[in-house]
């Protein structure tokens, strides 16, 4: 008997995929909002452990990232490369081409425009010309960095995830070598001297004009994906390569083209960081933005406009936690843990939106409910109903 009961037991927790039609958009929004709330609650644990009041800490994060003009400008500065990389990844992901090489493509772009800044910065060339050259070189270098894995995927069907990841290390390695070798300033410093002022991006409203470039890309990207032939091709390939071929699309070529484009936009991110913010090159120029951008892209479901919101949120946390560190001495690592928790919860909630968790007890409850109603319907007495429940529970207790 007990043996049999064991066999018939359903697992304690089960997952079931919700069918597309069951998704209620309002519910999805509610789940997303509650995931942020849960993240804030969970995030307060490490903060509490450092002896700081979490409410106060969160206050500082908000105040320290949006509280005054300077903070706001710094937050936006952080947001620019992140948003730019997320936009770049969008078409690749739409195509189901798992490009995780934004980090490297950004670095490649940064290296190329630094080269221009170093070679021509001191020349008599006008600033606008140098900046344009830097821009173009960043695009080409980033594009090539993206094109290479695209080419190998198209021609030899290599694994794009590993390939783009490797390309990251190569680009970062080159930057490191330049930093310690050919472009090093004073021997032994491992630092490349600040570039000439002519290579600085002008400020608009207090922030370098990279933000205008990125906003333009947001709009262009939106139209590119929804209105152009290219965007259509990318969407078809993402759904079914066979169908794309059948419709006469050159899948390999489109892959290479899209990867070039993606790399080029990452290259622009590199240019904006070098010419707008750092004014020098180092091996951490990408600063993890290329990886975080994957999360941003994914969370915004490849919608350009939503990417603005998500990247803003992440920039706020990143900038705010720096302030938190300075003001009340919460270690930077704790702030990182908090933003890790937030990302985890936001990604995790997508899972809850698409899947349903069923506990065994909820199943039994339903089965009982229906069994009892059936019973009731049969003999019309609540008596039989009552007796059936203990019988069931006793079986369950085994």
């Amino acid at each position, binding site marked *: 008997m007990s043996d049999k009961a064991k*066999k018939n037991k*359903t697992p304690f927790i*089960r997952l*079931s995929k919700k*069918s*597309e*039609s069951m998704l209620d958009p309002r519910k999805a929004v509610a789940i997303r909002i509650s995931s942020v709330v849960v993240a804030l609650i969970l995030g307060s644990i490490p903060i509490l452990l450092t002896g700081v009041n979490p409410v106060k800490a969160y206050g500082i994060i908000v105040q320290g990232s949006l509280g005054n003009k300077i903070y706001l400008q710094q937050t936006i500065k952080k947001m620019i490369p992140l948003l730019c990389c997320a936009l770049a990844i969008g078409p690749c992901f739409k195509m189901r081409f798992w490009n995780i090489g934004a980090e490297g493509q950004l670095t490649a772009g940064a290296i190329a425009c630094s080269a221009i800044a170093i070679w021509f910065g001191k020349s008599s060339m006008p600033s606008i010309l140098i900046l344009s050259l830097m821009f173009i070189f960043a695009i080409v270098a980033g594009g090539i960095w993206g094109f290479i894995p695209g080419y190998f995927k198209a021609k030899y069907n290599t694994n794009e995830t590993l390939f783009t990841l490797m390309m990251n290390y190569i680009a970062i390695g080159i930057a490191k070598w330049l930093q310690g070798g050919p472009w090093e300033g004073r021997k032994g410093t491992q630092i490349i001297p600040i570039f000439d002022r002519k290579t600085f991006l002008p400020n608009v409203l207090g922030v370098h004009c990279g933000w205008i470039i990125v906003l333009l890309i947001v709009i262009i990207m939106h139209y590119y994906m929804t*209105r*152009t*032939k*290219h965007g*259509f*091709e990318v*969407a*078809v390939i993402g*759904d*079914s390569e*066979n*169908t794309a*071929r*059948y*419709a*006469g699309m050159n899948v390999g070529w489109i892959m290479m083209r899209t990867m070039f484009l993606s790399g080029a936009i990452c290259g622009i991110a590199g240019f904006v960081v070098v010419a707008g913010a750092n004014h020098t090159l180092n091996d951490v120029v990408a600063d993890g933005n290329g990886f975080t951008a994957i999360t941003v892209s994914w969370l915004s479901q490849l919608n350009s406009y939503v990417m603005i919101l998500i990247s803003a949120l992440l920039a706020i946390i990143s900038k705010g936690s720096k302030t938190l560190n300075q003001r009340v001495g919460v270690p930077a690592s704790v702030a990182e843990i908090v933003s890790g928790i937030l990302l985890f919860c936001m990604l995790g909630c997508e899972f809850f939106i698409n899947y349903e968790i069923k506990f065994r007890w909820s*199943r039994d409850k*339903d*089965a009982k409910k*229906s*069994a009892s*109603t*059936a019973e009731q*319907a049969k003999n019309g007495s609540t008596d039989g109903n009552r007796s059936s429940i203990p019988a069931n529970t006793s079986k369950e207790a085994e």
Partner: protein
Amino acid sequence: MQNCAIELKNIRKTFGPVVANDGINLQINRGEILCLLGENGSGKTTLMNMLSGIYQPDGGEIYADGRKVTIRSPHDAFKNGIGMIHQHYHLVDVFTAAQNIILGLDEAMDIGRVNTRVKEICDRYGFGIDPKMKVYDMSVSQKQTVEIVKVLYRGSEILILDEPTAVLTPQETDKLFAVLRNMRRDNKAIVLITHKLAEVMAVSDKVAILRKGRYIATVNTKETSPGELTDMMVGRAVTLNLDRPKYDNPEDKLVVEGLTVVDREGIKKLNNVSFTARTGEILGVAGIAGSGQKELLESISGLYPVKSGSIKFVNTDKTTVELVGKTPTQIKEIGVGMGFVPEDRLGMGLVGSMGMTDNMMLRSWREGRGLFFNRKKPQDLADRVWKKLDVVTPSTEFPVRRMSGGNIQKVLVGREIASHPPVLLTAYAVRGLDINTSYAIYNLLNDQKMGGSAVMYVGEELDVLMELCDRILVLCDGQVSGIVDGRTATKEEIGLLMTTVGGKEA
């Protein structure tokens, strides 16, 4: 009632704005084969999915052996003895039949015992599969058999088969029906979904009819006729006639000579195939499944590499263009349209996540200069196909993946026919379509023919081929075993050609 296995009362199911089922009452009895009949999108699959635990009804009750039950998962369905064979199979390619059968069971993996039990089931009902065979080596019909055995192995008493015959050859269908009759003798309850009325009449005891998601009636097969069933299905008297209009002066349009292709393993799929397709003519292609039909159409449209031979397209001014060596796009520009309906409808030809409009655009997205596409024309085309073929869908933006099987097909065929190509290639164009729509498609093909197209029609049902086609090319094992006149050929003659090449057994 003693032999009533499942009873459905007043079942309702909606998907957002779409009412897929409403007020359905159905009785499934032991020892009986019940056919479920209805036009495309009338809710047959949805209804059966509620019995097998894929969907839950929004309203109504399900009784199993007189007990009210809630079926919340396929697992629950199995506990109630219900097993469903879906149209798309869920088998693991690298596993053997036996491994697939016990997959997902909590049972200890005693393969030896499983093999003997599988063998037992096979012998009992007359299946011919080897439990040790790997799935990737199997034909479609063998895979289907594995699915059926899988369901029987779990002790299912109620079997639901969703359009099992759509992918089978007539011979395989006969075999399946023999098995179903054995099961009936074994007092199992069987529900069969099919669009082919001949099959309904041949195998079923009762027929339940759905129309636009509503339940119409259940009738005894013996007391009804195909005509009456069609009328009930459509809701009005329909006359189905197929004629073969004569086109006045046919001209050669496509000249194929010595076409030979090999697959990746180096096996010859087409061997020295030669024929001519003419304007104003429907050229039927008959043959046992896998005799090279697919490769023939794919190589004409440039999707399959050609080893040797030539395919010439004849222009109106009598000049010819060689198609071998051209890309699919170039061939399409020349004017070869392909209405290829593969076994996997969504894998090739349509984009499941997009709506009708975007799927229409797959044909025309390149048109016009500049970066942006023009959505006006595909939108118009989608509207036209929607109306002309009665596609059941809430809007032209509704993802085609979520439409019913037959409606997905209508979108595909509708698009291909719409471009009025000089050469129209169709394969299994009516697979999974209800009878009314099938005839609509046949008539559209006739329209194409009378408009001067050379139409190639790869089909399965010999009756239709003989009624519709002017000439029938018979393929056997990649070779042309004969080209016969559709007006004079007999079924026996074609049947013989299908299994023999050049007079000797293949």
